């Protein structure tokens, strides 16, 4: 199997790469993990990962500006339905649009908008933005879990996940929000639709929970 982590000029690519390699080794998965911006690698990949840190618009523009990457990604994910994981901004890019000081369209693969975490009255009392650190995961109100969470305990008894972000993705269809985390309000922690999953938290930085999650992704057959 081959997993490609898309290099579009953003992100802590090395962290993600190492975590995926480690998960593959720990779980004895025969996966080759490559970082690439070459459309051919995306065409040949079995699994696709879009990492991302930074601003929504910069990331979207970075993806668009690399020759053939956007087209190859669309073909792989939307037409061939290969398993896809977006991390942090890589997840937010799935949205219809991002609303920042400079608005930007997104991939529009999961309908919804990305907005700044609302500074509410409580922010003066210590709810800072970025939302940074370890937080708990909960199943969304609809309570539907997801195959990629098999064997991972969610909720009060589950492990924490590492977050660092100032923006949040609100899917239009609430059923596509699988996990939330509590930070002044319920914030989307994971979305899923068909062959796509996206996490706001960083599995590559979430120690055991993260490596388990990555291993599940690498064996996921949507």
């Amino acid at each position: 199997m081959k997993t490609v982590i898309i290099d579009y000029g953003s992100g802590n690519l090395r962290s993600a790469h190492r975590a995926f390699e480690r998960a593959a080794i720990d779980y004895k998965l025969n996966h080759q993990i490559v970082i690439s911006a070459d459309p051919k690698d995306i065409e040949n990949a079995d699994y696709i990962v879009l990492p991302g840190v930074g601003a929504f618009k910069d990331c979207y523009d970075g993806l668009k500006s690399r020759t053939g990457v956007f087209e190859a990604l669309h073909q792989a994910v939307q037409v061939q339905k290969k398993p896809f994981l977006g991390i942090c901004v890589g997840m937010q890019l799935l949205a219809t649009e991002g609303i920042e000081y400079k608005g930007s369209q997104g991939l529009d693969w999961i309908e919804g908008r990305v907005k700044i975490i609302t500074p509410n009255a409580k922010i003066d009392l210590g709810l800072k933005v970025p939302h940074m650190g370890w937080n708990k995961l909960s199943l969304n109100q609809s309570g539907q879990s997801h195959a990629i969470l098999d064997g991972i305990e969610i909720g009060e008894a589950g492990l924490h996940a590492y977050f660092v972000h100032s923006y949040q993705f609100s899917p239009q269809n609430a059923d596509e929000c699988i996990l939330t985390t509590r930070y002044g309000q319920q914030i989307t922690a994971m979305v899923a639709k068909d062959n796509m999953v996206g996490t706001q938290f960083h599995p590559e930085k979430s120690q055991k929970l993260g490596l388990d999650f990555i291993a599940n992704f690498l064996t996921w057959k949507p």
Partner: protein
Amino acid sequence: MSQFIQAVQQDSDLKARIIPCLDVRDGRVVKGVNFVGLKDAGDPVECAKIYDAAGADELCFLDITASVEGRGTLLNMVSQTAEQCFMPLTVGGGVRAVDDVRALLLAGADKVGINTSAVKRPELVGECAEKFGNQCIVVAIDAKRVSKVGEALRWEIFTHGGRTATGIDAVEFAIKVADLGAGEILLTSMDRDGTKSGFNLPLTRAVADAVSIPVIASGGVGNLDHLVEGIIEGHASAVLAASIFHFGDYTVEQAKKYMASKGISMRLDGYAN
């Protein structure tokens, strides 16, 4: 329990963080650590692995290398550490330009600390935030009290290890870099650093209350009550400590359990089994 902490914890499950900090020169840990079972106390990767297994919430490397060759060694060290540790890693020290930040991020750092350069040229904070996102830009502020007894409290930024006064007000500077795009502030009290007499709480609180980004309290930790005070009295989002952990006075686990016993929400599930 203070109203502040209650308000934070009522609406959020985010945990306060404990961040051990290692001083590194030419790719080696200096000032030493003293863990049971550690083969090479100077090996940053070994130290990082121990803290990873001990349940540290993040790890910070402070690079005090002077030479250009040493920077190459640092990148190599960051890379090896990131290979072994799946928790967030902040690297600070000697960052002067956007390219320094890029090199550290590519090596495997998750966040990069900017100190003196941000004082000399605050615009660098904005340039880096625009390139890499504000979440990975930590501005390190070294502050010292300059007000006299009886005067209103005032702190100034000092550079060069606390020797050089800049005349810049620490709270105003914190507000400025937050506006420019810093994602977090690492606030070190130069009055307290190394004293083991506790954080400078008025300073920590003045800065934490003035900005909407997280503040890491640093400088002066000598016991576990100091960590508690940093969060409850200082309103910090995270506490950084070096020697109390390096020399085995307390384990990270002890610290977390103690802070939890004082009503602070901590992540108690990070220890290796």
